[in-house]
């Protein structure tokens, strides 16, 4: 009995507040827009019995999805989200790997402090961290002031409200997600393997490519997924740093909902986004599973 209650409470909570809402999204994505509150039809009216259920299913159609398919805006937004996420993930890897490497090879007594320093920004407000770049990157911002003062440029660069600013924002906010799994992989690395490679005539660089990188592969893969997956649906970064020229699907969904008030289309956008995300999520789960098996 107690066992049943223990399982039931969190189970029902998640069913009611996680699964059921998704079914509603799916249903509304198949409904028509209406000028009412809530602004969509049809609703399921169980009091009418079978007739109501049949009318409900007859009312469902794929019109919103056809609309998404024919309107270029959405396709472009999905593709550009994927592209921005992929490039940003690669950039985060390039920035994060040397930091993780430096941490893993730091003296033992330093490592806990370094780890703390990587985790600390993660606890700080995401919104504030993104916001802090607005003052740096704007036309009269600190970066332009510095570059002009140093004589490197004469006219300020336009960085804020371009995709470059979005990349900087993503790399900055997601860096800890990349560093931590790579650090975990590098920390376990047996250094005698590197010595062996060097004894066998490898240069330090070849030993790095042939030994260190392959042995940290799991960490690299995990880090890349941890950056890639949440970046695709990102909303705050493209809105604050990307300006109107950066197209990302999270922003499109937000505007569809709050500005156009087209709930069915917003729901259809969400359903397709979810379908796109399922592939990397399953790959990520498999990778984690594999890692757990090799660890034990």
């Amino acid at each position, binding site marked *: 009995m*107690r*066992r049943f209650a*223990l*399982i039931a*409470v*969190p*189970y029902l*909570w*998640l069913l009611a*507040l*996680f*699964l059921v*809402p*998704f079914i*509603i999204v799916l249903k*509304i994505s198949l409904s028509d827009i209406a000028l009412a509150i*809530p602004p969509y039809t049809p609703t399921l009216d169980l009091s009418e019995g079978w007739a109501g259920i049949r009318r409900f299913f007859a009312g469902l159609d794929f019109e919103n999805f056809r609309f998404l398919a024919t309107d270029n805006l959405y396709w472009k937004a999905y593709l550009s989200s994927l592209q921005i996420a992929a490039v940003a993930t690669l950039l985060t890897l390039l*920035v994060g790997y*040397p930091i993780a*490497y*430096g941490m893993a*090879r*730091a003296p033992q007594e330093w490592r806990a402090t370094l780890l*703390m*320093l990587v*985790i*600390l920004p993660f*606890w*700080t*407000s*995401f*919104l*504030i961290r993104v*916001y*802090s770049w*607005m*003052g*740096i990157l704007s036309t009269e*911002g*600190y970066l332009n002031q510095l570059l002009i003062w140093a004589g490197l440029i004469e006219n300020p660069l336009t960085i804020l409200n371009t995709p470059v600013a979005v990349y900087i924002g993503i790399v*900055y906010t997601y*860096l800890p997600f990349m560093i931590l799994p790579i650090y975990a992989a590098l920390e376990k690395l047996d*250094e005698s393997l590197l010595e062996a490679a060097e004894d066998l005539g490898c240069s330090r660089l070849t030993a790095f490519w042939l030994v260190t990188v392959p042995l940290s592969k799991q960490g690299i893969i995990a880090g890349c997924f941890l950056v890639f*997956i*949440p970046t695709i*649906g990102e*909303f705050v970064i493209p*809105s*604050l740093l990307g300006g109107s020229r950066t197209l990302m699907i*999270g922003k499109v*969904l*937000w505007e569809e*909902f709050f500005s156009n008030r087209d*709930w069915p289309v917003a729901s259809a956008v*969400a359903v397709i*986004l*979810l379908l796109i*995300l399922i592939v990397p*999520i399953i790959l990520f*789960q498999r990778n984690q599973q594999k890692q757990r098996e090799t660890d034990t």
Partner: protein
Amino acid sequence: MRRFTWFNTTSLTLGFAFLYLPMIILVIYSFNDSKLVTVWAGFSTRWYGELIQNDAFLDAAWVTIKVAGISSTLATVLGTMAAIVMVRMGRFHGRTLFSGMIYAPLVMPEVITGLSLLLLFIGLGLDRGVFTIILAHTTFSMCYVSVVVSSRLISFDTSLEEAALDLGCSPLQAFRLVTLPIIAPAVISGWLLAFTLSLDDLVIASFTSGPSATTLPMKIWSSVRLGVSPEINALSTLMIAVVTVGVVTASLISKRAAVQQRRDEQAADRAGMA
């Protein structure tokens, strides 16, 4: 022997400069006297003064703390229960669905979570406000709590619980006297995580809130969209300070607890050998 080489020192210095400079600049410029945020006009705390007198910010801060306090506590209870179910309950009907529902919110884009919860609340006819934000925050943060707690549960020895049961404890007593003290550090860090996640959330709160409740991130968002402002710099500095003090204190406490536990274990080992 691991040591700092020039390469590692450079990459660490550059890396940490990148991670911390934006926030350091923000903190410095929050003490700027000028209304123009990018021009330094001397040291002043005037923006902190204006912040304290701004009722809209104070109201939003109060709403945020209330939401974060209640939702993180609920999430800790539910998340710990979920972790025990995942780790200790073995197989039951619907276990796959359950673990799916625990892990899915961790990778779900916030816009989708927010949208789907809003549609649920509207469907149920709930008045949107503090209560609905609390429901929403509890739901996604309980998943984080359960991941943190279950990693701790997996690593500890079930024979301790069994011993307590053998010695006549009821399952509830065994949980309270044996399991809970051992997983306490994970439960506390789960609570902290849930609290900061709630404190920080803009997207889900914007979807699930109504006109009656505005959280601090929502307030920051609406003023930040118009550009950088010195008041927001001051507010950000305060938030960074609170989080830093909180996290550093928590980690020092848990470090001390770990040292104490190791000492206890060693003492127990010695006693066992003697």
